């Protein structure tokens, strides 16, 4: 059972197809637009938390009075991300966020939909403020980055959720996998009426 975050991160990065990885020119595009992102940080952060707080289920993730702390944290994430080197430490940080999300009960459905919202805002602002070819390059680089971040956080969440169960109960991951396999066919059978094709 792999619990070394850096080793796991490297394994997860290997799962990403070559053409979806960040290339040097993507990193340069992102780094060159640090000022653009910083100028949009307030818009992104405000919209992000307005959206989360407008929904009862997502609002419940936060403690009373926590919003200013989280807003600062998201603004720092944007600055650190866009100005970053996208090295091993950066990707390991994203994998770490998956564990944090378990602790905070930020399930992957919330995380995925909100990352999509950020992407929507970033791309919209880019096309509003930048020449079309520059906005297109930024869109490509941003979507690659968002895809990698999403895959690391979501798989880390899933993996470490199982690791936590495994370490608490003593049930090895292989055995957990077997327990799932003996039940999954029943789940498919019970829900087959929802299959459209």
């Amino acid at each position, binding site marked *: 059972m792999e619990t070394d975050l850096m080793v796991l991160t490297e394994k997860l990065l290997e799962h990403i197809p070559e053409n979806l990885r960040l290339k040097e020119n993507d990193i340069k595009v992102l780094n060159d637009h640090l000022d653009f992102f910083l100028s949009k940080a307030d818009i992104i952060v405000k919209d992000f938390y307005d959206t989360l707080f407008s929904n009862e289920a997502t609002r419940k993730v936060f403690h009373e009075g926590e919003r200013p702390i989280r807003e600062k944290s998201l603004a720092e994430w944007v600055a650190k991300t866009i100005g970053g080197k996208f090295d091993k430490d950066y990707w390991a940080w994203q994998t770490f966020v998956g564990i944090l999300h378990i602790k905070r009960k930020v399930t992957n459905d919330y995380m995925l939909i909100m990352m999509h919202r950020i992407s929507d805002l970033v791309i919209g602002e880019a096309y509003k403020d930048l020449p079309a070819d520059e906005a297109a390059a930024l869109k490509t680089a941003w979507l690659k980055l968002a895809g990698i971040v999403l895959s690391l956080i979501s798989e880390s969440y899933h993996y470490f959720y199982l690791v936590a169960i495994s370490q*608490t*109960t*003593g*049930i*090895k991951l*292989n*055995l957990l996998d*077997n*327990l799932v*396999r*003996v*039940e999954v066919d029943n789940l498919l059978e019970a829900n087959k009426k929802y299959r459209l094709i």
Partner: protein
Amino acid sequence: MKNLDAILQELLMNTDSEAVVLANSDGLPLAAINTKDDNRIAALTASLQSMTDRFVENFNRDKSKQIIVETDQGYITIKRVNDNLVLMLLSGENAKLGMILLYVDDAIKRINEVFV
């Protein structure tokens, strides 16, 4: 495996039991008799063994030697065969625990001989 099946069959007869499964530590069945769903029972048997080991670890005890579940319909005995195998025996209400433990130990000894 023929030898394993013979050992398990004999264990069932000697203990007036209903079903038996031999599973590996990943929860896969190596041999089973009369279990409705070998895969499920093997996985659950290995899980119970793992959870009991982790449970006793919290009290600084060595690994558990056996788990005996008493129900109105009889006993369910789970016993480690070795580090990689675990045995589950489902016995009826007329089965005697002393006989169960005696023959389970004998079966475990013979199973280990198969894997030497």
